[in-house]
């Protein structure tokens, strides 16, 4: 049925191998880029065929596993290299291959002339491959392979400009933070495997088997432990509190990388993972609360930081963190479908935003380079008035911004609103719901604010770079612009496949296709909720839903208005504001000093402790003990040696002494 699904990951892998091994010899950028993009395009095509095939099946039968080979078999443990085809993985491969292809395409233009062009595409292909493994893997371990693989590629791509120390640092930070998450992931895996095995003799890490036997799991208790562990993994990968700090730093990588990895795909892996194992998470209300709270906090917290950043990519990075927070909020409130929906729309508009910013930076960089200026090409304070120079870029960027701001009619509106409504109405968190909704709504307002701040600072007003450089600003080539257009289009229309029920009913009975499509994946959760429905009654009030929707739109509009006021109409206010609250601004600008805090409480103590263990413990105590024994023996040697005086009387004395002692012992005993 899905026999050729293996092509999806394998094609990028082949691309990686060709470019990685022979790229240096090929040299021709078109060929290299073509191979890489072609590979992903191939995957996209196969993905399309796959999803079509899937859709052709009745919804209850939309699950299939394709085993490639047996991977690790040991004792009780078995993990195959096998792919799981179901609505969730299909939607993911569509996003990965589709957005991925566009970004590959974009990269050909963006990375033009870079040293190590082949390396870049090799990594990118490797990333795509890993991402496919992650979403297609039919068991936790294979997912983990992809999970680590994307982390690795992220590391490689962040550190692409390895001669910059900051790039290397950022890469390492990303990898290590991900590793902290992996620690949780592994523990979750172990605990789940061990618990299911030891209590029910079901030794499995296969998703389908786990799902089928999930009814054996208790509510809370061990499941909370398991899910919290997994959630720790997710926070690492998806840059949630407390492990989010790597993501802004990851902007050291080339911009398309940020678009692909740090916006559209990899960072959403945590969300995917939770959705994939929804039947576990639903069984632990505690975990859900934790997820929801952390998601909401992250959404809000990152949004605050986003308001004060001047680096165009950093704003987007914090925006990503914030949006990921939304997705986790969705997960936390049990709105798995909504979360995935937001994942998808976010992939569209955030990719578009990043690519658009990339186009801006690219253009700025070229201009500054021509003008021999050393100004930062990414600093928004150097930009301004670009809309005339780069109209297409501006247009697409604006569309995506509107989408992310949650203006009705655009994709972001549908997904975000669904999440907010669920946050308010879900049956899991009781009184917390209002708070969650409030935080989400405020974050939405902040999002609208900082996104429009970005747009205004970048595209509106006076151009703030040197006039000489200004002349060199120009619209990007088609290979760059084309993906922007496609993504902008998707940002606009992407939301219509998942129109919320209330709106759908009004508009004319349009069903929520997306929810319907995904429902088999969440079957077990729904069954569980159905069983426990009496205990947890959610809120169902159409009027309220409309009201909340209006509120959030209003908040977004307020945010936009403020942004307009501050950055277009009355540009002096921000400076005055900063002057009025310097501490607050400094704190926000410096990202609440979280990095420094981490350095202070974790990194530096670790290093100091390492130093102590080495110089203090290893050398002094352990080796000291070893050498101490040796030295003691040597000292005795010196002592014994001195007893050998060379004097005959002493020797005789020793003999006589020996005799006397021996005799005394045996005679007097």
């Amino acid at each position, binding site marked *: 049925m899905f026999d050729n699904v293996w092509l999806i990951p394998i094609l990028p892998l082949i691309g990686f191998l060709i470019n990685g091994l022979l790229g240096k010899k090929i040299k021709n950028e078109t060929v290299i880029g073509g191979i890489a993009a072609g590979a992903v395009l191939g995957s996209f095509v196969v993905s399309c065929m796959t999803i079509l095939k899937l859709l052709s099946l009745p919804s209850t039968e939309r699950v299939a596993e394709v085993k490639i080979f047996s991977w690790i078999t040991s004792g009780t443990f078995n993990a195959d290299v096998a792919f799981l085809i179901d609505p969730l993985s299909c939607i993911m491969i569509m996003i990965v291959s589709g957005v991925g292809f566009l970004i590959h395409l974009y990269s050909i233009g963006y990375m033009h002339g870079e040293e190590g062009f082949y390396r870049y595409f090799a990594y990118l292909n490797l990333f795509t491959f890993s991402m496919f493994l992650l979403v297609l893997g039919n068991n936790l371990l294979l997912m983990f392979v992809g999970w680590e693989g994307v982390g690795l590629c992220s590391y490689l791509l962040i550190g692409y400009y390895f001669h910059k120390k900051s790039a290397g640092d950022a890469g390492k930070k990303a990898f290590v933070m991900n590793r902290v998450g992996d620690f949780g992931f592994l523990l979750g895996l172990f605990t789940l495997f061990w618990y299911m095995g030891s209590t029910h003799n079901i030794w499995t890490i296969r998703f389908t088997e786990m799902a089928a036997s999930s009814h054996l799991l208790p509510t809370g208790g061990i499941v909370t432990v398991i899910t919290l562990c997994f959630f720790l993994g997710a926070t690492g990968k998806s840059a949630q509190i407390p492990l989010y700090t790597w993501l802004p730093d990851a902007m050291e990588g080339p911009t398309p990388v940020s678009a692909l990895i740090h916006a559209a795909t990899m960072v959403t892996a945590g969300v995917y993972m939770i959705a994939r194992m929804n039947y576990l998470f639903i069984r632990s209300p505690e975990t859900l609360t934790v997820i929801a709270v952390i998601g909401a906090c992250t959404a809000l917290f990152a949004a605050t930081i986003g308001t004060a950043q001047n680096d165009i990519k950093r704003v987007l990075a914090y925006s990503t963190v914030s949006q990921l927070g939304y997705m986790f909020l969705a997960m936390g409130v049990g709105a798995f479908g909504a979360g995935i929906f937001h994942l998808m729309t976010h992939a569209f508009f955030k990719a578009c935003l990043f690519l658009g910013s990339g186009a801006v930076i690219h253009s700025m960089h070229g201009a500054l380079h021509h003008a021999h200026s050393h100004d930062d090409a990414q600093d928004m304070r150097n930009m301004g008035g670009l809309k005339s120079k780069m109209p297409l870029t501006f247009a697409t960027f604006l569309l995506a911004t509107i989408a992310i701001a949650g203006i009705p009619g655009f994709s972001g509106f549908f997904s975000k609103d669904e999440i907010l409504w669920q946050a308010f109405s879900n049956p899991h968190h009781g009184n917390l719901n209002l708070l969650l909704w409030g935080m989400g709504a405020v974050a939405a307002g902040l999002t609208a604010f900082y996104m429009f701040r970005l747009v205004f600072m970048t595209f509106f007003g006076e151009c703030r770079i040197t006039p000489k450089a200004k002349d060199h600003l120009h619209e990007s080539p088609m290979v760059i612009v084309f993906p922007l257009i496609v993504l902008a289009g998707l940002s606009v229309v992407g939301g219509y496949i998942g129109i919320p029920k209330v709106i759908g009913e009004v508009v004319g009975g349009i069903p929520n296709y997306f929810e319907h499509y995904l429902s088999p994946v969440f079957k077990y959760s729904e069954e569980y909720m159905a069983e426990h429905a009496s205990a947890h009654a959610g809120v169902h009030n159409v009027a309220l839903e409309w009201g909340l929707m209006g509120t959030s739109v209003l908040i977004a509009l307020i945010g936009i208005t403020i942004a307009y006021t501050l950055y277009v109409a009355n540009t002096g206010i921000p400076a005055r504001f900063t002057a009025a609250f310097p501490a607050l601004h400094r704190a926000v600008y410096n990202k609440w000093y979280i990095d420094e805090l981490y350095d202070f409480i974790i990194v530096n103590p670790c290093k100091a402790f390492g130093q102590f263990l080495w110089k203090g413990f290893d050398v002094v105590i352990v080796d000291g003990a070893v050498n101490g024994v040796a030295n003691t*023996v*040597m000292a*005795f*040697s*010196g002592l*014994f*040696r001195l007893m*050998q005086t*060379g004097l*005959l009387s*002493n*020797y*005789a004395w*020793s*003999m006589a*002494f*020996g*005799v006397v002692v*021996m*005799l005394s012992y*045996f*005679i007097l005993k």
Partner: protein
Amino acid sequence: MDMISIPAINMTPILPEIFLSSLAMVLLLITVFSPGGSKSLLGNISFIGIAATAVLVGSGWGANISSFNGSVILDNFATFFKMVFLLSAGLSILISDKYMNREGCNHGELYPIILFTTVGMMLMASGTDLMVIFLGLEVMSVSLYVLAGFNRNNLKSNEAGLKYFLLGAFSTGFLLYGMALIYGATGTTRIAKIATIIGQMTLPSANIMLVAGMLLMFTGFAFKVAAAPFHMWTPDVYEGAPTPMTAFMSTGPKAAAFAASLRIFLIALPTLQAEWGQLLWVLAVLTMTVGNITALRQDNIKRMLAYSSIAHAGYCLVGFAAGNGTGTAGILFYMLSYAFMNIGAFAIIILVAKKGEPNGTVMDLAGFGFKHPILALAMTIFMFSLAGVPPTAGFIGKFYLFSGAIQKGYIWLAILGVLNSAASVYYYLRVIVYMYMKEPNEEFEWTVVTAPVALALLIAVAGTLIPGVVPSLLLELAQNAIKLI
């Protein structure tokens, strides 16, 4: 007054001794009548003589003949040890000529005296009467005093001789007093009879005279094997004595003392094993520890090997303390392999040294390894064997010694033994470190490896390596030898 009729005597057991003594006397005559004659010829003759004696001794394997009214016996035990003595003497003779020529004291009397020493040792091994053992010991000792002081123009040699003599005589006093007490307690000096009489005692360990006699007598042997605290003479004497004689002294006489004491303790005093086991336990630990620990800081190789020789006596005492088949067979095997490896090591020292041995320290070996790779390889093998690293004879020997102790239940003794063995690795390795891993201070003069020395080295290397890899034959011989006791 009737004539004393000398009883009919089976001379077979002492044929080798007679042969060797006769040879020694012939050699003496040769030296007396041709004082300027070739000394190496004498050496060669005595080596051949020793080889012939070895054949003679070897042909007696399996026999069990007692003679001279029970004062001497030919058994496998004696045969095995005699082989060790002959080996020790033979190898020492091979390496003597070069050394004695260099030191200018190549007197022809050397070889007869070595042969007489060997006769003394052989008598110790085969004697079954305290008197025979005592006289054998004295023949050996007196000869050794001479040998130690043989380089009479060298003050060190004089000192060595004098020290050895005075302390040796002192220990003889204890030995004799012990024998006297045993005689008093049992009424006889024949080992077999002593055994019988003690066997009839109800509680031999309560017989204080017997126990004291045993202790005092053991003191005498302990002195010869250089067991602590009777070991103090060893480093000085070994350092001062002419090197080939040190090689000889450290192997043959030590084995002889073990032979005699093994025979006495295992045949005559097995009922007192609780006592002497305890005693030897302590002495073994003391000896190993003192020997090894002191050796760690020795720069002079001869002195270092002297301390090492103390330590090896300690290892053998471990087997002795166990007193069972495995341990005692281990002693036999060990003494044999020790003769190979130790004399081999001394042979190398002789080759390295200059006249008067001004360069007798470990440091003087720096760079030796790559100047004379074959000699250094041989030295390396000896050192590893002394350290007890497989696959050398030294390892197998230690294995059996410690096995004996473990079999007996002396686990701690074995543990202390192996710890000592581990410590000893340091100073043996130090030799290797200097040979291979340090740059030479000065150019080596090319030492001429004379044919006898080469032969000695060849035998020593073979004797160290082959039993290390295929020890079965020798071990079986040792087992057989010990069975008859």
